[in-house]
């Protein structure tokens, strides 16, 4: 037994450096991009969206013989690392991609609680990072190497208020948000501020929260239904929305509900069995009636994976393409450190980019300026374009 244990310990100790040091040494003609995404944990669907969108790009470009940079063709090599939706895991994942896998740039993490610490790592190590879906201002603040492909929370909330004000003409709103999710909480707070700026203090009559793992929302909804709110703002992840909206209807809520970009998933209508039909939400693009490159992406994705991509899929598609565009602009020298800085400079230099989620121009902080789209869930369960808005 002792010998066996000794052998196991020794083997583990020997194995440790070998595995940790194992650098995937590869040919020269490869562009390595890392993905720091949640494939397990509470929202594996988000990571899946990013991964699938990236796979589409990879297959297309590698199918054409690679990406052309400075007259030479480079094959794409995408490395997906699971961050388990944990901050510490996102940090070590970022280090792994930067140090072990020696990637040129990182895409992800998708959500802010992971993107903020991982962005710090990328910035400290001078590696460009673009988050497809982190809407918190802190992600890119004072970090020249960190970018994003989506608009920010302080942009989205006023847009929603502006739209609700003109569309419904109501004065009293209720808000329900996820206490443990910084995205939902931030948006709820900002919506409250903007709403009260227009309709006067006290016009948000119910400001209720729930926990990340809650499944029963009946008390909060009873409170909301009993208040004189005329509109419910629900900046929640779509799988929560699919539970909250039917429960609200059971409790007698029959007034409009408005949502945020986290509603943007094909699963929303399926999971709520159509309970969300007729409601509006602010988002990055409208899948129904899309044209050109957007439609092409949606069709490819749908054909390959069997469902219409979520918003995060489309944003990831743009994020990856921005990185590739920057690589093409910057050219490759083979010196990793210089290339990373050059890519960052090239990304900063991209002032306008025609993405599938709209035309974007970048601010010096690395944040895109683009229109928010308001979509309506129509009777067919599609997300129908309603308006393009700026606050």
């Amino acid at each position, binding site marked *: 037994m002792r010998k066996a244990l000794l052998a196991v310990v020794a083997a583990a100790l020997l194995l440790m450096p070998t595995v940790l040091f194992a650098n995937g040494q590869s040919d020269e003609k490869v562009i390595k991009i890392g993905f720091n995404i949640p494939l397990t944990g509470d929202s594996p669907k988000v990571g899946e969206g990013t991964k699938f969108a990236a796979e589409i790009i990879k297959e297309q470009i590698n199918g054409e013989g690679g990406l052309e940079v400075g007259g030479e063709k480079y094959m794409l090599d995408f490395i997906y690392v699971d961050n388990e939706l944990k901050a510490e895991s996102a940090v070590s994942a970022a280090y792994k991609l930067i140090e072990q896998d020696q990637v040129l740039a990182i895409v992800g993490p998708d959500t802010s609680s992971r993107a903020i610490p991982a962005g710090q790592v990328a910035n400290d190590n001078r590696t460009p990072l673009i988050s497809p879906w982190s809407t918190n201002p802190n992600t890119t603040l004072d970090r020249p190497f960190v970018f994003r492909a989506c608009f920010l929370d302080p942009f989205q909330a006023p847009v929603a208020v502006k739209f609700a004000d003109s569309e419904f003409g109501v004065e009293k709103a209720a808000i329900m948000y996820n206490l443990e999710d910084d995205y939902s909480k931030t948006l709820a707070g900002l919506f409250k501020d903007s709403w009260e700026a227009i309709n006067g203090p006290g016009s948000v009559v119910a400001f209720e*929260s729930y926990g990340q793992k809650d*499944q*029963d929302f009946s008390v909060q909804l009873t409170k909301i239904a009993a208040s004189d709110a005329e509109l419910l703002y629900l900046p929640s992840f779509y799988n929560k929305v*699919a539970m909250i909206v039917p429960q609200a209807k*059971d*409790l007698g809520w029959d007034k409009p509900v408005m949502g945020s970009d986290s509603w943007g998933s094909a*699963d929303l209508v399926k999971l709520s*069995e159509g309970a969300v039909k007729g409601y509006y939400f602010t988002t990055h693009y409208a899948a129904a009636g899309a044209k050109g490159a957007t439609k092409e992406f949606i069709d490819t994705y749908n054909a390959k994976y069997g*469902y219409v991509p979520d918003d995060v899929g489309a944003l990831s598609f743009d994020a990856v393409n921005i990185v590739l565009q920057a690589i093409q602009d910057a050219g490759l020298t083979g010196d990793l450190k210089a290339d990373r800085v050059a890519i960052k400079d090239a990304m900063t230099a991209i002032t306008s980019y025609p993405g599938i989620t709209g035309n974007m121009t970048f601010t010096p902080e690395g944040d895109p300026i683009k229109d928010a789209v308001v979509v309506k869930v129509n009777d067919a369960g599609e997300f129908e374009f309603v308006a393009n808005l700026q606050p």
Partner: protein
Amino acid sequence: MFSTLLQNLFNALQWGSFYSMIALGYCLVYGVLRLINFAHGDIFMMACYFAFFIASWFLGNLAGMPGPIIFGLTMILTMVATSGLGLFIERVAYRPLRKKGAHRLYVVITALMLGFILENGNLAVLGASSRRFPDMFGKIVFQFAGVSLTNYKIIVIVTAVLAFALLNLIVNSTKIGMAMRAVSYDKFAIPLMGIPLNRIITFTFILGSSLAAVAGILFGMSYPVLDPYMGMIIGWKAFIAAVVGGIGDIKGAFLGGFILGFIEIIVVAFFPSSYKDLIAFVILLVILSVKPTGFFGVAKSTKI
């Protein structure tokens, strides 16, 4: 105001029913084996998925059958499937450890690990998309005196009470129930009396898993979005409920579930909802400080 209160009473009864049914599963296994079966929350999750697949299959292949019949068939098959899972876990993971005389907390850790496997195995096999539980019979919303009730809500509360009554009958008035109580009283003397210990344990796991199955179906109907991690927190909280009621006593577990349900709902009804966990758990701490063995627990005497 009164109608809100009444509405919240029903909300609490419904939510408490789920805690109760899951807590009973913890309590049964705990009573017999002194094992905190942390996999129970995930067995409940698997029960939801079993019910999802079985109900979807029936609805696809036996279209036109009346809802209650499909519901009954689904219930029976889900109970069989979930009991099978519970038994499999018992046989493969817990029993060998018991035989080796492992410290009970190692069995608890094994249970935790099994929970991880069930959650992530499910995620790996079924993919990242959440599932929508099918409607077996139409949801009807009743309105009276400002209170909204659905037929689901009533079914849930009634079933929970019935399940408890049945369990109480089994434990207190049948021969095997007597044997279960005997095992929980003295695990070493009982085999000497000619009572087949392993058969009793098997039966206990069947009972516990069946309760999880009933809870799973009803949960799927009431909160129809299924994801692999749905059983985790509700499982932990149901365990807390079982302990607050006095783990080892099925009356305690049953009431503990409702107590926790009521505390959670009342806190949200009267305080800002963001303080839900904070206040609810402070109340629990106070309860346990005043009654260190829960409401019905009698320190290390009769269990079950």
